[in-house]
């Protein structure tokens, strides 16, 4: 076999590796921002619920973090979304129809997720995320009604962040394996914290998840910087 041919084949193999590496890097870059936004959401909603004693801060803050996430969208979808979410939020603050307001907030949030679909379909790299968020949010609406109706509200602090972490871990099984490890670690940490906390401290459970999210964000940042993909 000619030496030149082998050299050419090896250099082609390097090119294939370079494309795969670049693809992983781009995927991780988009995942990284999601982890920072949702980590901060878990931490801030947890702290506000704890200090005010009002569990509804989990919902009050949610649209604002979707808005933060929306900076990555096109300017018009972001603008329409900001205006709608603010209107619903103001309505919620002055409304006594809490359930109806929650329903509206979820509707706006889910619509916000699917607004992004147009961009998502252009590139399979982004296709899965909006659909995943749609399912997570829909499931959470059902979960909220179930825990509120059964008077076991404290479970919400464990189940809500747990479901997000589990779903991201499931997504990781098909794309990035370290996401599954993140899911496992944060869910174990969340359950342990939930069991150790007393009744007053239970709203701090999502904070544990938030710390895991931000920790995973830092891990992804370092991994991209050091190009260990």
């Amino acid at each position: 076999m000619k030496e030149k041919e082998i050299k050419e084949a090896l250099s082609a193999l390097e090119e294939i590796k370079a494309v795969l590496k670049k693809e992983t890097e781009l995927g991780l870059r988009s995942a990284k921002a999601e982890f920072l936004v949702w980590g901060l959401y878990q931490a801030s909603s947890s702290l506000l619920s704890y200090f005010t004693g009002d569990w509804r801060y989990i919902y009050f803050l949610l649209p604002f973090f979707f808005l933060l996430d929306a900076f990555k969208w096109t300017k018009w979808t972001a603008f329409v979304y900001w205006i709608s979410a603010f209107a619903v939020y103001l309505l919620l603050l002055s409304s006594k129809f809490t359930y109806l307001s929650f329903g509206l907030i979820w509707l706006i949030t889910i619509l916000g997720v699917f607004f992004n679909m147009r961009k998502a379909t252009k590139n399979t790299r982004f296709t899965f995320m909006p659909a995943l968020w749609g399912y997570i949010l829909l499931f959470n609406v059902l979960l909220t009604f179930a825990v509120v109706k059964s008077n076991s509200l404290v479970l919400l602090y464990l189940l809500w962040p747990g479901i997000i972490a589990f779903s991201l871990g499931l997504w990781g099984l098909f794309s990035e394996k370290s996401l599954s490890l993140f899911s496992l670690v944060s869910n174990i940490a969340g359950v342990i914290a939930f069991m150790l906390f007393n009744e007053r401290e239970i709203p701090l459970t999502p904070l544990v998840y938030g710390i895991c999210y931000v920790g995973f964000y830092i891990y992804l940042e370092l991994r991209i910087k050091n190009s260990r993909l």
Partner: protein
Amino acid sequence: MNPVIHEPVRLRAMLALAKYKELSFKELLELVSTTEGNLSRHLSKLEEAGYVEIKKFFEGKKPKTLIKITEVGRRALEEYIEELESILKGYQEKSEE
């Protein structure tokens, strides 16, 4: 080895297009990591060979370019990879002897 595909930028572009089927110029640029001019030049060569289709249109007032791999291009890439595998396999067997 197929000289049209066996060029680093064209090989990267073909691999990315084979995976995503269709990409915008901007998305392909991100994956291939080169300059706009260089990518344009190499895409023209791939288009001449019938390996890709380039669609240019306006989305509102913004010009947009979409690049899609053709069936001929996909087959050529598959043959290229098969050839690459056989060369590397031969190299591996030789170095094990």
